[in-house]
């Protein structure tokens, strides 16, 4: 609980009587002396009077202001002042307990609260001086994303919670003003895509549209990459409401009233590695012309000189170990150098899209929800791209038969000729 008090002149109703003496401990008083023109005593009937007086501080042996009561015959006076040579007793009216500073506290339960469950925050005032004026300002909730929710002017506020933050309320008791506030902790949903993301070797044709097979021997991309967005790793490639996530809104009137959040997350990262079609079993065939050794091998194997693709020439017409090594190297490179690091990064908190999205909350509406979700989405994508784009090592040479269309040949390249682009680019 936090509070501050505003000290203002207060009216006090005091009892008084004329005459008599008072015996009591001396009181240390540094404040201005009230303008009292009547004596107080304990042995005579007392007439109530109304005067203005300033709050004073009692020294040691002082009384708890909240225990002060109207002076009655037989009471023990616990403090005194001297003014104009007249000793007086300092007493407190039960009608105006302006020095009786109440404790104003707030409790929110349960706290922490499970996501989506209801919390109830209640202000307590103890003690409430008899006849005191008590007023409550409006509740406010403050959360991340600069959200601010206004609540009722009441001593209690409850509702569904989806995000942690603070609630506060202004309380007035007589002339004292207080701010009471409490932090509310919401246990997060256990969102994560760590066990959902994955990757595999592409089936023939998968992600072909995402790389230039003339210049690139193999590639790793997301399953949803396109020719216009070839480097996309995430699905969907373009985020929108209901594509990648669903939006929701708190519908009650509690501390999180009206806030928009992500109700579910379906975005994923499914990676594919792929060998350039030229080297796959479904590659384009080429005329069997040129070097007689290979042409004869294909004729011997198939019984004709029909056109064949690179894969068939190097694995069926002849078994070229260099080609088999090349294929193995290409798959392993894509998986070890690109796919594995990408998946490892995707499982870290800074790149786990579902984990990042779990806490996105906005007040403005679904468009702003999309903006904030997209900012985290692209941030995560960049982290994964960074991890996946690292290339190590130099150009790698493999010796196998490739069709050179400008020469109508099937030379055994590698040792005798440099490969196109000085090697395979992975």
């Amino acid at each position, binding site marked *: 609980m*936090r*509070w*501050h*008090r*505003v*000290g*203002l002149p207060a009216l006090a109703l005091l009892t008084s009587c004329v005459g008599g003496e008072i015996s009591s401990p001396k009181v240390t008083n540094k404040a201005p002396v009230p303008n009292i023109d009547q004596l107080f005593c304990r042995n005579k009937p007392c007439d109530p009077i109304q005067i203005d007086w300033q709050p004073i501080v009692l020294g040691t042996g002082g009384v708890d202001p909240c225990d002060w009561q109207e002076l009655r015959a037989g009471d023990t006076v616990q403090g005194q002042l001297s003014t104009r040579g007249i000793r007086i007793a300092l007493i407190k009216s039960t009608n105006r307990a302006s020095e009786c500073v109440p404790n104003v506290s707030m409790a929110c339960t349960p706290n922490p609260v499970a996501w989506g469950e209801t919390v109830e925050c209640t202000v307590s005032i103890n003690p409430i001086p008899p006849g005191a*004026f008590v*007023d*409550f*300002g*409006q509740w406010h909730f*403050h*959360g*991340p*994303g*600069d959200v*601010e929710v206004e609540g009722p*002017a009441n001593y209690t506020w409850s509702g569904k919670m989806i995000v942690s*933050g*603070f609630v*506060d309320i*202004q309380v*007035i008791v007589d*002339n004292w*003003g207080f*701010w009471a*506030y409490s*932090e509310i902790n919401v246990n997060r949903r256990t969102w994560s895509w760590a066990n959902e993301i994955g990757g595999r070797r592409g089936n023939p044709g998968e992600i072909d549209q995402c790389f*230039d097979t003339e210049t690139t021997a193999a590639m790793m991309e997301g399953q949803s990459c396109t*020719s*216009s*967005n*070839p*480097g996309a790793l995430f699905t969907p490639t373009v985020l929108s409401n209901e594509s990648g996530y669903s939006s929701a809104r708190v519908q009650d009137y509690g501390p999180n009233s009206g806030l928009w959040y992500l109700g579910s997350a379906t975005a994923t990262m499914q990676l594919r590695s792929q060998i350039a079609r030229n080297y796959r079993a479904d590659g384009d065939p080429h005329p069997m012309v040129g070097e007689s050794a290979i042409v004869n091998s294909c004729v011997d194997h198939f019984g004709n000189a029909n056109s064949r693709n690179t894969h068939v020439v190097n694995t069926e017409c002849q078994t070229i170990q260099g080609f088999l090594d090349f294929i193995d190297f290409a798959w392993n490179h894509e998986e070890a150098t690109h796919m594995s690091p990408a998946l490892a990064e995707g499982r*870290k*908190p*800074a*790149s*786990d899209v579902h*984990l*990042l999205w779990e*806490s996105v909350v906005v007040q*403005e509406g679904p468009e*702003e929800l999309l*903006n*904030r979700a*997209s*900012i*985290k989405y*692209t*941030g*995560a*994508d*960049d*982290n994964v*791209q*960074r991890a996946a*784009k690292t290339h190590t090592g130099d150009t790698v040479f493999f010796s196998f038969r490739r069709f050179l269309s400008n020469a109508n040949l099937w030379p055994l390249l590698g040792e005798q000729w440099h490969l196109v682009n000085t090697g395979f680019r992975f």
Partner: protein
Amino acid sequence: MKYLGFNVRLALLLGVLVTPAAAQRPFPDTSAAEIALLLRTKGMSGGALKILMQEHGPQPKGKLDAIADTLTEIAISYPGDSIRSVNVRYEALQTLAASGRRLRGIPYTGAAERLAQIALSGSSVRGGALYALTLIVDRGRALQLLRQVATSRNAIAYAAVGHLARDMGAEGLALARQLYLQDSAREPNAREELERMARYYKWQ
């Protein structure tokens, strides 16, 4: 608040007669230092967006810039790899990014430069900062800054190329084409991105 006398309300609003032992209302809308403390300890920007967008009235430019610089610094360098730490960086970034959009009040004119600054840092939120540039009100400035990043040697240059082509409309696509034709990209992945686009769009 009903029945509250003017003097009491004024006293409360002015914060007068606050005893040393008491605390102020927990969401000060004042200094960059207070906002930074709330961000670092509670992961909340504590009204910074309202101040940056001058929702409750004009604010001195120096104050806006100080808050924006604080948000930038936290987005770049708040340490840690936990989700809590990441979300602190994102809270700073999201606040700064939102201040440059047409949400409410007056868009903060210093948002774009600071988003670019975050994008060029090594922070884990740099990709989000670069994307946030595509959302700010000042499209002209966003295009300029994306071009600067795309032609830099910074590792995020490739992403700036992508945002120009896909997120900045016809103007951005034309700028990307210009970068390709003028061979302006210097970072290898940015060059590759442009080459892929050139094949797709058949740029001559």
